Every structure is written in C-alpha cells, then in structure tokens.
C-alpha cells in the first residue's frame, strides 16, 4: 500500500465517519441522568430556576436539599464543590429538584413563608455551624436576630465571630434563612449573595420598607 493510497483511505474514512453532531451528543448525554437515577448510581441531582434576583441552582441528594447556588455564584464552581464535598456522581436532573424549586418559586412569589423540605446537612461542617443553621428556620419570615443572638441559640453566646463564619458558609441560603441575621446596630452585615440581595430579601419579607 503506497502512502498515497493510505492518505486517500484515511481521508475517505474521516469524511464518511458516522459522526455524532453536537445536538445528537447533547441529546444522548441528557438521557444519561435519568437512567443513572433509575439505576441508583446518581448521588446528586441539580437543576436551576429563574428568580426575580437571578438564576439560582438547587442540588439534592437522596436525603434532601444539599446545596443552593445564589445568583452571584458561578454554577460550575458550586457543582465542583458539591462533587468534592458530597460525591462526584453529580448530574443535571431537574426533575429530582422539582419540589425545592417549586417552594423557592412560591417564596419569591410571596406565596410561601416557610419551607417544608428535607435537608441534607452534609455540606455544613462542624457541630457549631450545624446547630446554628438548623436553628435558623425558627426565625420567622419578616423577623431578624443579631449575630450574637444566633450564637447564643447555638449554645455559645460569645462566639459571634464563629457565628458570622457559619452564616457566611451557609450552603442552603434562602431555605435556611441566614439573611435574617443582622448586626445588632441595625446594619445588615454581610451576605453570601451580596449585601444588595440581603437587603432585597428583607424588604420582600417586609422587615425593611
């Protein structure tokens, strides 16, 4: 076989290869998540939703809601973190996040004041942070508490700095309402989704005018 024969044949193979185009590959890949879920190999499913404050991400495990991505967060980075801390078996499968997405939609539509969702706390690290965040849903819609009050409720009244850290790393924002913890002087304090978002949420809940 001469080199020219070889080149001709290679060329013919490349040109007539039954290649999958992008759409076809995307379509085939999209079907994997559902099959993986049915086969029991999918550990984390995620989906996104549009809110008045931007696009949010919702990730769930078999145990419940495990991670919220606020509009200012990079989706890829959030998913990478979930892969690292929970399981790398993560796929986009919006139907597994339907309940959480619906409740969040209702919240932003003013039709829901508390969430009724199973929670997977595995992205909350440390006993103190867990105690603190678990207690937050008791701070009602339209109310706020101070950082030191949050620390006191978690059993360490003087740990307001640790309380700040626990709140800043809340992986379940909105649903675990860390935006309802503000500085005692009335200043709103920081927020993972940005200070404007905190203000927006507290206004929506009627705490601010």
């Amino acid at each position: 076989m001469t080199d020219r024969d070889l080149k001709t044949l290679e060329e013919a193979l490349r040109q007539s290869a039954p290649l999958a185009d992008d759409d076809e590959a995307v379509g085939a890949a999209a079907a994997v998540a559902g099959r993986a879920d049915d086969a029991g190999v999918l550990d984390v499913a995620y989906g996104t939703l549009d809110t008045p404050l931007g696009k949010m991400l919702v990730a769930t495990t078999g145990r419940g809601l495990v991670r919220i991505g606020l509009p200012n967060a990079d989706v890829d980075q959030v998913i990478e973190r979930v892969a690292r801390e929970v399981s790398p078996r993560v796929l986009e499968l919006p139907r597994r996040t339907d309940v959480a997405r619906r409740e969040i939609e209702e919240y932003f539509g003013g039709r829901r004041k508390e969430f009724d969702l199973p929670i997977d706390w595995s992205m909350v690290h440390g006993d103190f942070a867990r105690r603190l965040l678990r207690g937050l849903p008791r701070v009602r819609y339209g109310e706020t508490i101070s950082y030191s009050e949050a620390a006191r409720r978690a059993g360490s009244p003087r740990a307001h700095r640790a309380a700040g850290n626990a709140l800043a790393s809340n992986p379940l924002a909105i649903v675990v309402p860390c935006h309802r913890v503000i500085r005692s002087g009335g200043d709103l304090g920081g927020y993972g989704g940005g200070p404007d978002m905190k203000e927006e949420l507290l206004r929506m809940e009627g705490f601010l005018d």
Partner: protein
Amino acid sequence: MAKTLPPFQSFLDEHRGPVLSFLRSMVGPDDADDCFQETFIAAMRAYDRLDGQHPRAWVMTIARRKAIDHHRARKRRPVPSDKLPEQPTHDRTIADRDSGLWDSVRALPPKQRAAVSMRYAADLGYAEIAAALDCSEDAARRSVHEGLKRLRSEGAGEEART
C-alpha cells in the same frame, strides 16, 4: 471517596461527542444510543477508579466493552442456518446512514475495528488508543495500519470520495 474527580456532569460533557461517534462507528447509529447510555452508567458506577488514568482512554475502554457485548448479544439471536459463516454479519438497519466503507470497518477483526474507529471516528491520538486497547503505542499504530491495509485489499473506500 475520590478526592479530585470532576463532577460527573463535566466528565460526560467532555467525552460525549467522541464516545457517541465511536459507538456509531462500532455498532451503527441505531444501537449506538443504547450502548452510549450503558457506557456512561458503567463509567459512573466505576468513577472512583478513574483516578490517575487517562479519562478519555478509560471511557473508551468501557465503550468498546459495551460495543463487544452488543455484538455478542446480536450473535446469540437465532440466525438462519444456511447463512454463510464467512460472511461478516452486516446489520441491515445500520447500513442506511453511513457509507459502505464503514460497513467494511465493522467487518474487520475486533482489535483493528476498534483501533480504526477510535482513530477516524473518535479522532483519538495513538497514545489514547494504546491506553484504551491496553497495548503499546506501536501496537496501536500497527492495529490501525493493519486495518487500513485490509480495507484497501478489499477495495473499500475507492468509490467513497465524492
């Protein structure tokens, strides 16, 4: 649990195109989707074991295994007894969407078939093909070359240029 594995979604997004093309060239477009699903479900199940290996070669190894399973399953189906044993089993349903040249590829011996498909359908380099076929790079090159020689001797591809 693995430490540095990317989210499986990224892994899937990165390899879906070449894997689907490879499977189409191996089993034809009609059955490629099924093999594709099975490939990635198996990859997900074994994902922790990917550590340190070449990801594309690793998923191609699985895809190739699924294509072989597929061929075996096909062979187990009852066939008319007067069928010529020498005749490669051409699948009528897959012939329509790609040229006769790739039908000839499907009739190559298994290793050559896989090597040629990885090279010209999935566009893999020889290092990746070698890893996927668990052989040396030279052997991978040889398999591709043997495959081409065989195709040429059968006269395949001569009329494939338009």
